[in-house]
């Protein structure tokens, strides 16, 4: 039989049994819908996490004191506190892959302003810190080299701190006390939002020298923040930093480094491998439901074949070959699952958009996944339609005709 006629026959039989056809498709619809929606949510989540990490700065490399173990058992990462301002100077002078480098001195404490109280992190950084972190000022100014040299008691507030201490009034020019030392507010940072690292706006920035000499012992810095020239040279930059610092620390070849590097790319890779695994897991769960949908198709097709035994007998009697019957039922199964696949894609897209709209989830709708789910549903139709179709094709015409 010509394919056009076969399609017609399959189409008619689907239409004639609307309700049953729909119920058959339901499994596929839910399966495909689940694949699309869950993968969209999975990918959306992982992209959001990645963009949050990117928001930490541009091409960021962090140098921290301690052994080069990442996440290992190296107890007390800062115990061999080894980084100094001299290291920062050397990196700036000798490196070719570094755009900017800033010292970073961590302190924390109570901040008091106009009778209000807030406890936050106080970070000593260099004037180029905002470039490294890809950050802007909302108002006021950032401190300059001059303030670094004079260990000036000036501070730039993060948005959260500014809101907590000054609410709606303008903090620039106001005075605050950090650990009882009076500081003058010279600027407020743009809101950067929270990331998995916490609220990035809950911070006060002060000059490195001020933090180092007025708030800590004045020897070691907590970290060096570096921005590489471009994303393509992250590895070269890291190697170079390693070499320069080892030389600066007078380490012998056999000695392990007493500092460690961590790059943003590395963090993104780690996190995205986790979220990627999550997406695969969600996809796999959804694929199982698609499989269950396929079994539903097989079930209904088997019922349909039995129910239509007489029809099969008639077709065989007037000259249909077994193959014609096989193809007829196969096309019916595939048509059912493909139509189910299309409806499933629509359903999945709606579901994903619903999740994004009502539950504030970020989603990424990938047309490739839709295409894959669609092809997979077709394959499910072929796979699960084959057995019932073969059963139909193998019928004995006389027995089939006698069936009531």
């Amino acid at each position: 039989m010509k394919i056009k006629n076969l399609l017609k026959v399959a189409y008619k039989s689907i239409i004639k049994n609307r309700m049953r056809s729909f119920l058959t498709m339901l499994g596929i619809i839910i399966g495909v819908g689940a694949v699309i929606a869950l993968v969209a949510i999975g990918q959306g989540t992982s992209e959001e996490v990645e963009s949050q990490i990117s928001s930490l700065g541009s091409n960021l490399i962090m140098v921290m004191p301690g052994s080069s173990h990442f996440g290992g058992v190296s107890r007390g990462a800062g115990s061999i506190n080894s980084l100094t301002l001299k290291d920062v100077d050397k990196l700036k002078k000798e490196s070719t892959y570094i755009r900017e480098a800033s010292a970073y001195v961590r302190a924390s404490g109570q901040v008091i302003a106009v009778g209000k109280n807030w406890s936050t992190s106080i970070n000593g950084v260099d004037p180029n810190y905002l470039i490294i972190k890809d950050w802007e000022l909302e108002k006021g100014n950032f401190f300059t080299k001059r303030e670094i040299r004079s260990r000036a008691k000036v501070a730039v507030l993060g948005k959260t701190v500014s809101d907590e201490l000054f609410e709606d009034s303008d903090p620039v020019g106001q005075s605050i006390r950090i650990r009882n030392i009076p500081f003058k507010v010279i600027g407020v940072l743009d809101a950067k939002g929270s990331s998995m690292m916490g609220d990035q706006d809950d911070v006060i920035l002060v000059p490195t020298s001020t933090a180092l000499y007025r708030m800590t012992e004045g020897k070691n810095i907590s970290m060096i923040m570096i921005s590489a020239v471009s994303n393509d040279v992250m590895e070269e930059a890291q190697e170079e930093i390693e070499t320069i610092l080892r030389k600066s620390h007078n380490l012998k070849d056999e000695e392990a480094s007493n500092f460690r590097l961590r790059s943003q790319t590395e963090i993104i890779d780690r996190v995205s491998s986790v979220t990627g695994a999550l997406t695969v897991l969600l996809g796999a769960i959804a694929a199982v439901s698609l499989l269950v949908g396929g079994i539903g198709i097989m079930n209904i097709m088997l019922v349909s074949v039995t129910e239509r035994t007489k029809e099969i007998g008639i077709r065989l009697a007037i000259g249909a070959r077994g193959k014609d019957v096989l193809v007829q039922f196969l096309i019916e199964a595939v048509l059912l699952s493909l139509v189910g696949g299309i409806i499933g894609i629509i359903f999945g897209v709606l579901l994903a958009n619903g999740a994004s709209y009502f539950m504030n989830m970020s989603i990424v709708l990938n047309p490739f996944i839709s295409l894959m789910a669609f092809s997979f549903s077709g394959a499910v139709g072929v796979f699960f339609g084959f057995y019932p179709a073969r059963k139909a094709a193998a019928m004995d015409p006389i027995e089939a005709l006698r069936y009531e």
Partner: protein
Amino acid sequence: MEIIKIGKIKKTYIVGDVKVHALRKVDLTVKKGEFVSVMGSSGSGKSTLMNLIGCLDTPTSGTYILDGEKIDELKKPQLSDIRNQKIGFVFQGFNLLPRTNALENVELPLLYDRRGRVKDPSEKAKQALDRVGLLDRMDHEPTQLSGGQQQRVALARALVNEPSIILADEPTGNLDSRTSIEMMKILQELNSQGITILLVTHEEDIACYSSRIVRLRDGIKIEDKVLTEIRSAAKDLEEMGAIPVELNGNGYSTEV
């Protein structure tokens, strides 16, 4: 010219431990253009013989040549093609596809014809429906047709692909006597146009419209006679008077 040549054909069914001999060494030769009635009581093997001739079934032993082709050597797909191209079936129970209109039912054999001979199946099917006088009912589905009309649709389906023989297994079994004679009238017309017909019936009143009677008993041919006097169904109908069998007021026939 011989169109059917059956030699010592045997069909044995095995049901559990019991062997049922449906046909025991039956010989039969039918010439082109004959109108043969196969008679015999229930269980005598008439349907079994028809199914073998119709290539729906294969014999336990024996030879069968249809239109010069050795059927016993053919495989399933070839048997399908023979059924499609050389044989037209009419069954007692009509066996039309449900929820499928008359035209589509009649078209069906053409769609399965691998030779792709017929360019316009729909047109050809209309011609066949016209031959059985049902062109005006081509859009009707089986449930909208009377028994006699359904059987005529089945007949149109049987002859649409211009078969060498038409096999009718008790085609009048579900019809009243008048409709049965009308059916016989159409079969006689087709026979006069050169189509070979084999008809199973247990009614002498029906067999008398054919040209030859073959009688079976317990799977054995016990009689084979050519009728010298053939009744004309058209004439009988005329004598019965022209009661309109077509439509009544609501568009449906009142016949069985």
